[in-house]
């Protein structure tokens, strides 16, 4: 007996790991909980497959059963808390972040890369109250200062290709030229593109052998924060934090 999902035919999800992550990601995006039926619809996996995987994921505490379905489980919290790069960054960043915040009053963010996005490791609130300051926030690497600062120093050309895939012709060339400028100056900017009304400046974080591991950024109100004025401060913070990371 076949079970048909509501609309499109099921996607080929290659490995079991990909299916598991598709399920976890769908539950994450739906927050806080999702029904099995809805989960099958969103992942475009057969409901029987989803049921079976969910049962295994609940048993191993990656998911937990709720009144209406499932939610992310404590095991993910425990594993996530031990994630290597975020831990290293947070251990080294305290004084540097504090100093940058005291000097500018703007939101300071520490970012690591994931897929075509940047994910926040920590953030301190600044002048703009609506800018979120949670850990684990995702922003696109293509348009944000933190993303460009990372990409400019990233040694994997495929990642840059992947991130810039939506751009066509002139826009793609401009993007690559911009990344070259970022490499020269160690400063990346976003002036109201990623988030309207928000200006951001970022600098890369380099570990030993000058491998880029993330970026540090500040974000403030367009028109009120002057990128030229704050750029040297952000650059200095990036250098200081990179030094602390390499020494740790």
């Amino acid at each position, binding site marked *: 007996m076949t079970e048909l999902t509501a609309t499109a035919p099921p996607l080929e999800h290659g490995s079991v790991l990909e299916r598991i992550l598709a399920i976890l990601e769908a539950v994450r995006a739906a927050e806080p909980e999702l029904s099995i039926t809805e989960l099958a619809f969103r992942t475009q996996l057969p409901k029987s497959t989803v049921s079976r995987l969910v049962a295994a994921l609940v048993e191993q505490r990656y998911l937990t059963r709720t009144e209406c379905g499932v939610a*992310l489980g404590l095991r*993910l*919290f425990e594993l*996530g808390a031990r994630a290597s*790069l975020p831990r290293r960054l947070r251990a080294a960043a305290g004084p540097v972040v504090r100093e940058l915040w005291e000097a500018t009053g703007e939101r300071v963010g520490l970012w690591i890369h*994931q897929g075509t996005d940047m*994910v926040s490791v920590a953030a301190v609130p600044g002048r703009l109250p609506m800018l979120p300051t949670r850990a684990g926030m995702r922003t696109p690497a293509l348009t944000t200062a933190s993303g460009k600062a990372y990409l400019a120093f990233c040694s994997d050309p495929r990642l840059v290709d992947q991130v810039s895939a939506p751009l066509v012709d002139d826009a793609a060339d401009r993007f690559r030229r911009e990344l070259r400028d970022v490499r020269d100056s160690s400063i990346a900017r976003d002036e109201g593109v990623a988030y309207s009304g928000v200006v951001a400046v970022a600098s890369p974080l380099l570990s030993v052998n000058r491998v880029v591991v993330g970026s540090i950024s500040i974000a403030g109100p367009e028109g009120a924060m002057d990128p030229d004025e704050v750029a040297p401060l952000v650059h200095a913070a990036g250098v200081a934090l990179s030094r602390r990371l390499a020494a740790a």
Partner: protein
Amino acid sequence: MRTAGWTDSVTVLDRLTAVLEAFGDEEELGITELARRANLPKSTVSRIAADLARQGCLDHVDGKLGLGAKLFELGNAVEGPRALREAALPVMAGLRDATGQTVYAALVDGPDVVIVCIVRGRSSLPRGAAIGARRAAAATPFGRAIIECATAKDAGHVADGGAWVTSPIPWAGSEVDAVVALDAVGAEISVDRLALDTWAAAMAIGRRLASVRSSS
């Protein structure tokens, strides 16, 4: 005919968990050490690690492997710890400022205790105390103090001969017990006063949790 390993989804998940949990409290490991701890053949672990790294569940850091950004992102979205941390952090910081002592917030999950938040005071952290750490409650003085508090629902509870002061956090509608604990060792304030301050903090955190629930 079943082929071993990768095709059976339950076995796959068991192996994934074995690899991920092998990191323990260590930050980064090489493949050989990972295989040893996961108790799996090195070739299997190599393959699994490559798949996990491709998906962002493991990161390459300085030539070794560590738990990755994807897990970090998913972990930050887990509702219970997230809500508790958001509500508790400012209150815990206030308690630390007022007393000088290290403050913890933890969840009780069956026989275990999971640390969700730590605000550092003058005392050093006991071994194994870190955010995300899960310990059998019976195994450490900290764990036993938390369980005593959660079971007895005892506000401003003094445990372990005055070494810990704990208070349950009122969390309406949640099936999970949450506790705030203060390391009282070396305190310059009386234990009775610490108990009162800790109880007040637990109440404040409970109110913040309730107001988030009512506004969402």
